[in-house]
Structure formats: structure tokens, C-alpha cells
């Protein structure tokens, strides 16, 4: 959970209604933009006012006192994107302008970006130039922890770097790149072990697991981040992809760190020979996924690999050619409901890395839905919660799939049989606004299966209206937990709500709801602060 939620930007909009010329019904929108920490006004900040309701697309700039004013704005529901160099971009929504309204004293606060500076050197104390330095953020993807680069910088000839990144909690790493003159892998004599300059994580750990994250509050300047890149023995990974049919270009193999760190992988260029053989040099000891990257029409595949203290040879990676998946939908029992249209079904890759694939669906004359162009990996199928139907079970080749996860790592398993059920229920809820007033940004209601299971029972959000009311419809019967939480800043942050350990950690802070078939349950919830979410994530830490 990025801790930027811990230092939430806040939005306090107090509307002051004044009489306006009713014939025009136009509105005035004014306020200030300030630094979230120093409270100093931010001059020359850009505000971008847009609306889905009408075609307003208006831009304004704050003056020396950080003040802005939009005049003659048609009434409507607006989004305000506020940007300024040195601050994280932020969008505030909704801003509602009633006909003729003058909305004054809107106070927007921006988080200053944090700055990390330091030096990268080798084990002899010499600066390492052209090293890639990453700020790595923890992210969640359907309950699975990943580490994504949030910002990066390159060291100069003194080994120095200066990295600007949005406030949050990050791991910092440095990895060497090959210079034009000096290679980053070498040996001391022909036939001696291959050596390479390896990646280091702050504070000088060899792996992300052993590293300590740094917490960067808005505007924080963290200097003296020094990283020493060790020289380690490096090994080759040799083997063959089977079957292998390169078309039209040769495939590429990548080694990913199994920690989920997406910055640390073997340098691209591990090409596959036309006969399927490969030789990846300069691999540091570690636990990897060996992945065959899918280009259009060519095979994909993945396998776990350990590199310990010698070359790994004789590896056989099973290549899976792109395949189609036939899906047969039916309702349980004699339920005569119409089947949902194919676009209500979403097939999603669970563990994509570089390339996200969204297969397209077609319907055959017998009603079979065919998704085409799938590749090796783990997949989930979800049904949009917009009708009285839910997925009761998924089986493939007579095997029922646990939690609806389809493992196609070694290719397809056959046709999918999906049994739907009707009789969904509802959750009606209300939220108690806290006292003192909440300044933590927009809040929405969150519904998650009490088991915290990933798969086809994802976490759902619903908006909370001005009166604190919310409503989930078409909920499969079962036991749930309901929360009110700040709207996530990063698109995949809701992924943590599909982690069973996390849900267990926060379960005491939510309200349990047993959703009956064809019935409704009422809940009343309080806000779960972002800090508490962050602490819960820390407790389930690895």
C-alpha cells in the first residue's frame, strides 16, 4: 500500500451560495492551491476543469497568492485536475456547481514530490556511472504483491543521482548498465568464473526481501543514499524452448526475480536461436521466473528456476502457442433466465508482467463463447455485477477450479463449463461521518468476501452519497465484510483487498454482512483510515 494515502491531500470545499443572474444560471468557482505540508500558497499552479455532463474544458492558473477564479462556468458536476511542477498531479472530484452558484474558498492542497539523492559506488569505493537507480513501490494485483518502478534516475560520472518521486514508501535499488567502454560482466582470466556487478537495494542489501523501505513524506529531501554494488559470480542459463516456432521475429527470454520485483531482471537480448536453444549470460544467483515473452502469434511460457553456484544447463521450457478457450455457460437447475451477453464476462490474466493480454470474445451459433489469443499463465474469469447472476462454479475438463483460478501455464485444459446462479442479494449501507470532520479525500464503500479469496469474487466499490448512503446490488449470497475507505490513488491498489491475509488483518474494522439470496442486508460502517490499512499491510509483510 503506497503510504501516500497516509499523507492524504485534502480537499475542503465550503460552498457559499449567492444570488446570481438567474437568466444566465452560470457559476463562479474560486479558491486557493497550497502546499499540503507548509501550507504556503502555490503560485502558477494549473487547474484543469472538466465535466462529463457538458463540454466544458477550461484551464486556469493561480496567482502569486495561490488563488484561482473560474467565471461563467455552466452548472454541472466537475473534475478539477491540479498540477504544478515539483508536486504530484492530483484530481479532485466531484465538484458540484448548482445553477447560479458561486463556490468560494475551495482549498486544494498538493503534495510536494520527494527528492532522493546519493551515490552509487563499487566495492572498491569507485563511483559507478550510468547505473539505473529505482524507487520501487509495492503494488497489489489481485491479492498478489508486486514491486513496480515508480521513478528512476541514472547516475552521472561521479556516481551521483537525484530522483524525484511522489510522496510514498519505496524500496531503492541500483543496478549497473553496460557503458560504451566498460562492460559490466567480465572475468579475470580465460576459463575463470564469470563475474558481474550486481544489483544492490538500500541499505546495501543483496535482495529486495532483505532491504528496508524508506518513507518519503511530501517534500522530504533524503540525501546521502549511498549504494555499493558488489561484484558477484554470474552464471549462464542454457536450454531449449520446446516446441518452438518463431514467427515472425525470434522470441525473447527474460528472467524475473521471483520476489515480484519488476525492475530487476536479466537484460533484454537473451535471444532464442531458430532451433529453440538459448544461452542467457551473467545471471546472478537467485530465484527466478524464466519467461518467454509472447509476441503476436508466437509461443509463451514460464517456469521457476533457481540459480545457485553454477551454470544451469539442460533447461527445457515448454512453449505454449496462442490458444482459444471455449466457454459453455448455463444456469444452475431449471432456472430459465436469459444468459448474460459475452461482454459481461471478463477474462483477465492474473500474473501478467510485461504485456497485459485482454482476449476478445466471439459467440458461436450454439451459444459457446470463444476467447481467442490466450497465452501461458494464470487467468481469472469474472462476471460483471450488473444483473441477477453470479458464477457458482467453473470447471475445466471435469475438474472444478478452486477460487475460479485457471492455470494455463502449461497450456489449455479443455473447454470451460460455467454454472451460473440467480438469486443475488443486496447490501444497503450508511456511513457515519467522523467527528472531527474528515479531511482524507473522497471515500467509497468496499465489499469483500469474508474469505478474502482472490478469483472471481473480486473486491467491489460503491460510491457514498452526500447523506452517507451506499448500495451494492447483485451480490452473490454469502458472508461479506463491508468497509468505508478512501478512494485508491493507484489503480491496482484495490488488489490488496483480494489478499486473504490482509482481509483477516482488517476484518475487525469492517462490518460483517450475511447476504441472503433474493434478500437485503443493512449495515452501518465507519471510515477505515489509510494509516490503518498501511499498518495492516505491514503486519502481513512477506
Amino acid at each position, binding site marked *: 500500500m503506497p503510504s501516500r494515502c497516509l499523507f492524504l491531500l485534502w480537499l475542503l470545499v465550503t460552498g457559499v451560495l449567492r444570488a446570481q443572474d438567474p437568466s444566465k444560471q452560470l457559476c463562479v468557482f474560486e479558491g486557493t492551491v497550497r502546499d499540503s505540508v507548509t501550507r504556503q500558497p502555490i503560485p502558477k499552479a494549473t487547474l484543469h476543469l472538466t465535466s462529463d455532463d457538458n463540454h466544458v474544458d477550461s484551464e486556469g492558473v493561480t496567482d502569486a497568492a495561490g488563488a484561482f477564479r473560474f467565471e461563467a462556468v455552466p452548472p454541472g458536476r466537475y473534475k478539477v485536475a491540479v498540477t504544478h511542477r515539483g508536486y504530484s498531479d492530483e484530481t479532485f472530484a466531484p465538484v458540484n456547481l448548482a445553477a447560479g452558484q458561486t463556490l468560494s474558498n475551495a482549498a486544494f492542497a498538493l503534495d510536494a514530490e520527494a527528492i532522493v539523492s546519493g551515490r552509487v559506488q563499487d566495492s572498491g569505493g569507485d563511483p559507478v556511472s550510468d547505473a539505473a537507480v529505482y524507487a520501487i513501490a509495492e503494488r497489489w494485483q489481485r491479492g498478489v504483491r508486486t514491486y513496480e518502478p515508480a521513478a528512476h534516475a541514472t547516475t552521472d560520472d561521479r556516481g551521483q543521482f537525484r530522483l524525484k518521486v511522489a510522496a510514498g514508501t519505496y524500496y531503492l535499488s541500483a543496478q549497473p548498465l553496460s557503458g560504451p*567502454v566498460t562492460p559490466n560482466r*567480465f572475468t579475470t582470466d*580465460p576459463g575463470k568464473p564469470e563475474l558481474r556487478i550486481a544489483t544492490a537495494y538500500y541499505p546495501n542489501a543483496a535482495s529486495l526481501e532483505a532491504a528496508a523501505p524508506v518513507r518519503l513524506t511530501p517534500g522530504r529531501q533524503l540525501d546521502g543514499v549511498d549504494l555499493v554494488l558488489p561484484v558477484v559470480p554470474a552464471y549462464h542459463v542454457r536450454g531449449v524452448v520446446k516446441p518452438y516456432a518463431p514467427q515472425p521475429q525470434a522470441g525473447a527470454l527474460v528472467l524475473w526475480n521471483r520476489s515480484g520485483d519488476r525492475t530487476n531482471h536479466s537484460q533484454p537480448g537473451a535471444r532464442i536461436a531458430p532451433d529453440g536453444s538459448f544461452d542467457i*549470460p551473467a545471471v546472478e544467483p537467485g530465484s527466478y521466473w524464466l519467461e518467454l515473452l509472447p509476441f503476436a502469434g508466437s509461443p509463451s511460457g514460464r517456469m521457476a528456476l533457481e540459480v545457485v553456484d553454477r551454470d544451469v544447463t539442460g533447461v527445457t521450457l515448454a512453449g505454449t502457442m496462442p490458444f482459444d478457450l471455449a466457454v459453455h455457460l448455463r444456469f444452475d437447475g431449471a432456472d430459465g433466465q436469459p444468459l448474460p451477453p459475452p461482454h459481461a464476462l471478463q477474462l483477465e490474466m492474473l500474473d501478467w508482467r510485461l504485456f497485459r493480454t485482454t482476449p476478445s470474445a466471439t459467440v458461436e451459433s450454439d451459444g459457446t463463447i470463444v476467447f481467442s489469443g490466450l497465452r501461458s499463465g494464470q487467468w481469472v474469469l469474472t462476471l460483471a455485477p450488473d444483473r441477477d447472476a453470479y458464477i457458482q462454479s467453473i470447471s475445466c475438463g471435469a475438474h472444478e477450479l478452486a477460487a475460479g483460478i485457471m492455470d494455463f501455464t502449461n497450456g489449455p485444459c479443455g473447454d470451460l463449463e460455467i454454472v451460473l446462479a440467480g438469486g443475488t442479494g443486496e447490501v444497503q449501507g450508511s456511513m457515519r461521518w467522523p467527528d472531527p470532520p474528515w479531511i482524507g479525500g473522497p471515500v467509497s464503500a468496499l465489499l469483500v468476501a469474508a474469505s478474502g479469496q482472490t478469483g472471481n469474487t473480486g473486491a467491489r466499490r460503491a460510491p457514498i452519497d452526500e447523506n452517507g448512503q451506499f448500495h451494492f446490488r447483485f451480490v452473490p449470497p454469502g458472508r461479506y465484510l463491508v468497509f468505508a475507505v478512501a478512494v485508491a490513488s493507484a489503480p491496482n491498489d484495490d488488489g490488496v483487498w483480494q489478499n486473504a491475509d490482509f482481509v483477516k488483518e482488517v476484518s475487525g474494522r469492517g462490518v460483517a454482512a450475511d447476504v441472503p439470496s433474493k434478500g437485503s442486508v443493512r449495515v452501518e460502517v465507519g471510515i477505515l483510515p489509510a494509516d490503518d490499512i498501511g499498518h495492516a499491510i505491514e503486519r502481513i509483510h512477506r
Partner: protein
Amino acid sequence: MKPALLLLCALTAPAACLVEGRVLDAETGKPLPKTQVFAKPGPLKLSILHLTDDSGAFCFERLDAGAYQLAFHRTGYLDSLYGARPGADQGIVLVVDGPAAVPPVTVKMLRSAEIGGTLLEAGGEPLEGASLQLLRKVWDGGWNSDVVGDATTDDRGVFRFGRLAPGNYYVCAVPSQGPGMTTYYSRSFTFARATPIAVKPGDSIDNLAMTLNPWMPRHLSGRLAEALRPESASIILQPMGGRTHYAAEIPPDGSFSVDAPPGKYRLRFRGVPAAPPLEIDLTDGDITGLVVEPQRAFDLAISATLDGQPAPGQLALMVREVESGAVLTAHEHLNQGFRFPAVPAGLYRIEAGDQGAYVKNLIVDGKPRRDSLLDLRSAAPASIEVVMSRDVARVTGRLENSQTSLAVTVVRVDQEKSRTEALGGTTPADHTGQFKMDSLAPGRYRFFAIEGLDPDLWGSPELAAALAAKSVAVELRAGESRQLTLPVISAEEWTVGLRKSGM
């Protein structure tokens, strides 16, 4: 660098070295210990890393047979490749063949320099995210600017260019947003008036204070002559030595008006093919009332034969404007001859565009022109015939001294190609000091062998004249094979020549 590696080297140092040498500071001549020395056996093969000892010496006693480049890395110095000038990626290749040792090499490393400073906007605030370019002078039809580095100001307006070889540099700031104009250090609008920053080895210039020039454009206005007025057209000002273009639409009455920062520009008209390319100077003031007249131009059709046969389709022919050296190229078109549309009035030389053929004779209106010159100053001739031949000359040769510390490049100047530039071709001398050039048209040439040549700086006739005393002039006949022995112009003599020629 790595104590473990150092130990390894010390333990295994035997008597016989296949490749050995010393690494010295280029200025002081002092040995440079603990310098990383990579023997690089070519792409995809593993480099061998050794460190120099206290006397700056290194020794590779075990190397597989093959060709190696030696690369050197030491903190505070420019990375260098044996035999390459700083920044170049082609050095002298060492060939290891069996147990015979390669003669010892001496490598002189230059301390790296840096230029840095702070960029302020016109109002005095530090400017974040602005682009800066590091420039140097190169020969590009004249002494012009070339970008050799890019930098972006950080949140404090601070910029820095590191890893600099000694030389003269220029810094140019380009505002990315907001008001302000491209500014050359210190406050010039143009490269021509920029202040050079002289950098010596190890210099650390970190206090350059630059303020962006405010937006104060010059103004150009005028009209297209009656004969040029098109339906839709635009005027484009292309700065000489800059990147940002300034353009304006031209209304049907042919009038134009455009603002641009002070400076020299090439003026082009889009949608007006008969408009001539013009150069204008807005450095010191506005230009108003410019009237653009149509350019006199001729469509040429040239018939050609090659050794008595019709010229084959893939053959190319060029017309070269004698004063400027500007070239137009055409290919043979469906047995219809070579077509050059809209060739501006001027004096031209006709050349074969392909290696392996040359223009032997030019017959204009039935009369042979022995100088191959085509006079288009007042009118175009009715018929132009070109007789080409494959009976080219070739030159092979060697250097008087192949024991140089930098790689040597042989430069050929074709004396008849241009009056304003030293044009020709280059070829590297190999590690034994041999070189060859094939496919030369008969004619007068001058050959130079230059240690550490930077090809981007070659082309000035003054430079060629300054180095002429150590060059060899030859006149080659058709089909001739000539042996040459060339004296080597040392890196120092090359530097002196550059200084004399206005670089």
C-alpha cells in the same frame, strides 16, 4: 576497485605477457595504478579485467587467440579505448596469435572535466525542467555547431555536463515551457555570438550562471512576387545551428510576416516550389519589405553511356554546384536518361554517384567539355551527354610510421570537387599501417594520414592548407594502381592545424 581481483592479479603475474603496457596521466606522465584494464574480444565474448600495478603497468599473460581492443576505466578520468581519441569507439586493434607477444602499449588517460551551473528564467527564478545543450564547433560546409550533450535542469535549476574531454564548448538553454528564448551562454541569441568555454583536463566549472533571454523577437515581413503566389503556402524560418522552427501561413495575396528570435535563418517556402532558398540575418534588426522573386531553374535531361553501353539502371549521376559543393543526385529512369528537375542557375560539375565508375567525358550541345563543367548560369544547353567509364584508379599504401598512440585515418581530398571545401573520402589504416582506396576517378588528389582524426572537424580548406606540407599530391590516370607512402600528421600537428584554420 576490487581488492579480491587485485590479489588475483598479483598472485598470477608471470614473466611472459601476451599483451602488456603502462597507463599514464596524459598531462603529468605519472603512472596510474589500480586502473581497470579490459581486454575486449568482441561482441558476445567475455571481457578480461585486470588492474594496473603501482607503476601503472598491466599484463595479460593468458588470452585466447583473436583480436582485442583495450578499454581503460579510472575514476576521475575519461574512459578510453586504446588508440581512440576521447569519445571515439574505434581504436587500435591488437591481434593475439599464438604465444608471440604484442609490442607493449602506452596509454595516456585524460582527466575528465565538467561544466555545470544554474539556469534562471528571465524573472530570476531557478528554471526546472529546462533543456540544455552542450555544443561544439564542427565543420558542416562551414564552421557550425553540433550538439554533443544534453542536460535537464533539476528542481534547483542546476545542470551539469560531465565526462568532458578538453576543448572549447558552448552551452545553449532551450525553454521547455513559459516565456523565454533559446539562449547561448552567456546571453547570446545566436551560436555565432556565443561565448566559448575553454575546458582543460580535470577542469571543474560548476558555477556557470545563465539567465534565459526574455521573449524579444525580431520581425520579418515581405511578399512573394506575383509569379509565385500559390493557393496555400507557408514560410518557414529554420535557424542555422538551432532546432526550433518558426513558421507562418501565407495568405493568397502573397504577403508574409513572422516573428523569430534574433539570429541567422534559412528561409523556405512550403507549397512554392519555384521560390529560391534564401538566407536572412535577423541578428541585429528586423527585415521588412522582402520581395521573393522566382528562382531561375532548369530541368535537365542527361543521356549517359558506360564504357560504350547504355548506362545501367542502378547507376547514379550527381551534379555538384562548384562554389558550394551542394549536390543533386538522379538515377537512370526507364532508359530515358537521368532527369534533374529544377536545377538552380549556377556552374556545375558532373560526377558519377556510384563507386566503381567515373565521368570520363561531358559533351554539351555536341562539344566535349574537358573540365566536366556544366554552365547553367544563363541558360541550359539543349543536349547533355555523359560518357562514363569503369576504368578507375586505385591507391594502396603504407604509413611512414605506424607506431602511433592513436589510430591513423587516411583522408583523400579530390582537388576538383569544390572550391570551398576539402571534400573526398576517408579510410582507416590497419594495425600494420597499410591502407587502400579503390574506385577513384582519374584526377588530382591530395592524401593526408592523420593520427586521431575527428572526421566531424574535417572539411575546411584552411585546415587542409595548414596540413598540406605533410600530405602527398598525386595525379591518377585511368586504370592506374599507385603505391603511396604517407608521412603521419601527429595528433599535436592536427590540433595546431585546427587552431590555424579558425576552429
